[in-house]
């Protein structure tokens, strides 16, 4: 396993420490506002993946495993991180499909999306709950998980 961390500078690491959280926040914001403004599960997911990829490129996979996930990166644990990403992808897919199956229970076709308006809420006033968000969330996790699996597995080599 070759780690590119030796080749990155302190400056890039510092920059990354600042930029990565911003990207992640942006990604999540994109996910949430996607239904009304540019954004959505996809874009959020790809952006989040970029953030992780950045961390990986600059710090190396060992860093993520050691510092963030507290896994010792030796033989048996080698694929643990990838396994987690893979779980995330599977789960995302499960959420997307599972949420799409719900309408069947109510005698609507697969993937039917509805919008529920909760009115007269205290403080909030009116809240719009779109079932599509659950689907979008599934998309988000599936794509983040999938992309990170790819980046991590390639980087693992």
């Amino acid at each position, binding site marked *: 396993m070759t780690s590119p961390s030796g080749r990155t500078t302190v400056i890039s690491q510092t920059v990354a420490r600042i930029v990565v959280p911003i990207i992640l926040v942006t990604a999540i914001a994109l996910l949430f506002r996607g239904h*009304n403004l540019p954004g959505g599960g*996809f874009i959020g997911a*790809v952006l989040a993946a970029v953030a992780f990829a950045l961390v990986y490129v600059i710090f190396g996979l060992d860093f993520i495993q050691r510092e963030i996930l507290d896994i010792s990166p030796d033989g048996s644990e080698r694929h643990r991180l990838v396994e987690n990403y893979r779980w995330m992808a599977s789960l995302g897919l499960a959420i997307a499909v599972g949420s799409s199956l719900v309408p069947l229970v109510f005698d609507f076709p697969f993937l039917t999306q509805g919008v529920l308006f909760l009115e007269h809420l205290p403080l909030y006033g009116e809240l719009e709950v779109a079932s599509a968000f659950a689907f979008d969330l599934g998309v988000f996790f599936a*794509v983040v998980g*999938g992309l990170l699996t*790819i980046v991590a597995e*390639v980087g693992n080599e």
Partner: protein
Amino acid sequence: MTQVFLAGVLGVLFSVGTYLVLRRDVVRVVWGITIISQSANVYLVTMGGFDGLGPILSGHGGGGPPPTDPIVQALVLTAIVIGFGTTALALVLTYRVYEEHGTIDMYELGGNR
């Protein structure tokens, strides 16, 4: 609206992509595919026209000038993500081909099957 300029650009991009696909270096072949599939996406967007606004409704309920065709944008979004998946696969495959065969020269990989 005939898009002669875009037609020209896309034609050239496809030409370049094709030429790359026919090279011996596997990496170049992958570049060629990347260019071709991106050109296909550009083509789809072209179908939507360029004379509208972004497909974001101004507030809930509609109104305002007609946006550009949102369908092609949705299609292209799908195509971009799929394209990413396949490009990544092609790249890793290139790496594995090199590992297995010790070369990324198509001629050396050849063999009549």
